[in-house]
């Protein structure tokens, strides 16, 4: 019984959803669409994407180079510390 009545309720809900009428948007919507398209055409997405890609590439190269040179300096100083430190003082002085 309960399921019959709930089915009736749902059918009533679906009936009211079916009665929703079609709405009309405002008339200047098309000009809004064209404005957006023109704006997009002025700054092509492909141009924005390629500029971003170049920038990212540049920054990552710079970062890698800095990382590499820091490591190089660190290695050099490690090597220096391994070398026997010569005493410049001569015994007869």
């Amino acid at each position, binding site marked *: 019984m309960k399921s019959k009545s*709930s089915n009736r309720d749902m059918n009533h809900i679906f009936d009211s959803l*079916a009665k929703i009428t*079609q*709405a009309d*948007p405002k008339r200047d*919507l098309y000009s809004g669409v064209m404005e*957006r398209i023109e704006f997009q055409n002025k700054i092509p997405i492909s141009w924005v994407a390629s500029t971003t890609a170049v920038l990212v590439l540049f920054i990552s190269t710079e970062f890698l180079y800095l990382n590499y040179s820091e490591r190089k300096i660190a290695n050099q100083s490690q090597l220096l510390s391994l070398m026997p430190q010569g005493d410049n003082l001569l015994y007869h002085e």
Partner: protein
Amino acid sequence: MNLPDLFRNLYLQYFKLVYNVAIQYVQNTEDAEEITQDVFVKVHEKLDTFKREADIKTWIYRIAINQSLDFIKAKKSQKRWSFLSALSLDNNERPIEISHFNHPGILLEQNESMQKIFDAINRLPDNQKTVIILLKIEQNSMTETADIMKLSYKAVDALFQRAKKNLELLLTPNEEI
């Protein structure tokens, strides 16, 4: 027919459909107009790459559905951010809630009851919400809905049964999914 003419014809043929699909998702004229504009910008972008694998109406329907769902997602995350920023603001500075129920296809005397139904529909998962909109509001057939949603007839039927059950639970007082 050249591309601008084709686009204009498409717009004239489908702008009402797109606007009405959008309004079922957001129940607000301003948001629906914004979605409609976004949909046609996308249609314009992809028109030259459109392959006639799908019917053009089905293709536009899919763009409209995806754009509406994306719009809702973006709005939700925007709300989350404004809520967080509101916590750090004084009461006077709190941002005003902009989206309100404003569905032009509903009679004024039914506004309150329909708002309750839409509140429940909005709480359904995306694909269940879509199946209700396509079948019960837009009055598409089961086959058309299956085509738009890229699902089989059986899958749409199962999805609709689940959506109906969940909607029933949501509309019953003190019940959650």
